[in-house]
């Protein structure tokens, strides 16, 4: 009786320890969920004002020199949810891209206007196939590493993408680490006040957005489609609607 009780107690203890570690693992996995979600969002205020320029910094946390390059797809929206600019920039593992909000992300809007606030989405994808035809901005598709924020969209705002050139998968591995400074000076009576916020993972890479389940790549398909539309519209207006990729490193702001 005693032996049986001891064994049962031991088994129960082991089971509890197992459940404990399962719980810990689940918690850690959840806490690390942002690392596998390629979608992230942030906002900007007070762009193109007398306050300090905001800086977007993107780091690819993939293992140094071990993983392939990736694309940082960037979509810029005005406050009324209209996409105003988009671009996609190659980034290497452990590489870093620095963008000026005023001079690289909001300086060539489709509307031709000026925005002071809005949202920015950063989506990590794999590279497009070399040789992809970029319909609207061939510069996006030159060189060995091709990143097309439209992913071969025909620009018709109709969710039609290029045929054999269309290759897209959400990038495997870690998400990009993206940071944006925020100029909080709009109402301040003096001085400057700058904060910084990490881009927020919003989940469609983990739990699909029910609104976009009908598209092969979910939210990414929608963003690529809109990007194609604005780049087609902007093509005849000096390539409006495109943001500018920096070279890796902090030196070109």
């Amino acid at each position, binding site marked *: 009786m005693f032996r049986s009780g001891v064994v049962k107690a031991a088994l129960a203890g082991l089971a509890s320890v197992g459940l404990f570690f399962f719980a810990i693992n689940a918690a850690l996995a*959840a806490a690390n969920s942002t690392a596998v979600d390629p979608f992230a969002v942030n906002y900007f205020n007070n762009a193109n004002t007398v306050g300090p320029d905001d800086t977007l910094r993107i780091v690819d946390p993939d293992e140094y020199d071990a993983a392939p390059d990736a694309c940082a797809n960037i979509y810029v929206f005005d406050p009324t949810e209209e996409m105003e600019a988009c671009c996609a920039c190659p980034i290497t593992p452990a590489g870093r891209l620095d963008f000026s909000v005023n001079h690289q992300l909001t300086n060539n809007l489709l*509307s031709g206007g000026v925005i002071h606030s809005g949202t920015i989405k950063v989506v990590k994808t794999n590279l497009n196939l070399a040789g992809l035809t970029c319909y609207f901005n061939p510069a996006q598709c030159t060189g060995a590493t091709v990143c097309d924020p439209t992913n071969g969209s025909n620009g018709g705002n109709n969710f039609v993408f290029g045929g054999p050139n269309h290759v897209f998968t959400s990038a495997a591995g870690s998400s990009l680490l993206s940071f944006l400074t925020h100029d*909080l000076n709009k109402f301040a009576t003096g001085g400057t006040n700058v904060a910084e916020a990490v881009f927020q993972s919003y989940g469609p890479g983990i739990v699909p957005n029910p609104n976009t389940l009908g598209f092969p790549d979910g939210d990414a398909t929608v963003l690529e489609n809109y990007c194609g539309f604005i780049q087609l519209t902007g093509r005849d207006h000096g390539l409006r609607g495109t943001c500018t990729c920096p070279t890796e490193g902090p030196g070109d702001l």
Partner: protein
Amino acid sequence: MFLGKRVFGTSTAILLAVAIAMFAWSSMAAAESEESGVELQNYFSNAQITVAGNALVNITAPFEGDATAPNNAVKVGETCAMIYVFDTSQAMEECCGCPVTADGLLTLSITNNLADFPVGDAAAGINSLTDGSIRILASEPVTDLAYFGDSIPPWVNCDLSRSVCCDPAGSYNGFVRNVLDPYNELTAWGQHIQDTQMTETEFEVAPADLSDFSGLPVACAGLTSVGSGAGACTCPIETPTSGVIAKSK
């Protein structure tokens, strides 16, 4: 033997309870780790104090809409940010519902939009709401605007271009339910006045608690019914970008 079995059973029950509690904790941790969600929380400080300027709350709806939906509001992912403002003693002081579309940005001043007319001080004609907390629920918009008749209450805000409104008291499509339905997730950031400087933090995703989707609307309904105009926070009107090329999302 009977005693032994009973003791073992009790121990097992305790261990299982601990294990279940740990499992439940892990689920809560999972909910808390999300960076967008249907219930968000943050604090505010030093509202009405102008030394360091005016702290803002910025809210966006990151989920893309259903681009193939016939309903224009669904197409653009229109979501209600139901905002509930509390003082430091957990009393709800203001509430309002603000529509926000996918990738749109709501920028609200804490002093001028969210803590400008608290119900607690209304009778005394003062505003002592300087510190407290803010909860935001993501909910589906109301589409039956006829419910509101000729006048839309001040705590309800509408996107009339898409014929939807946001009622934080939970009147949904003509039915006064005082219950909200969770909808597309939201992400938000809150600025905090710290003495003479400002800091900023992301809104934290609250542990999933569906009771807040009924409790908060009920409290809001009570608040606005006795407020005589007080207790309704306000939503800013977004200004479209000026420009020469039309955009269409």
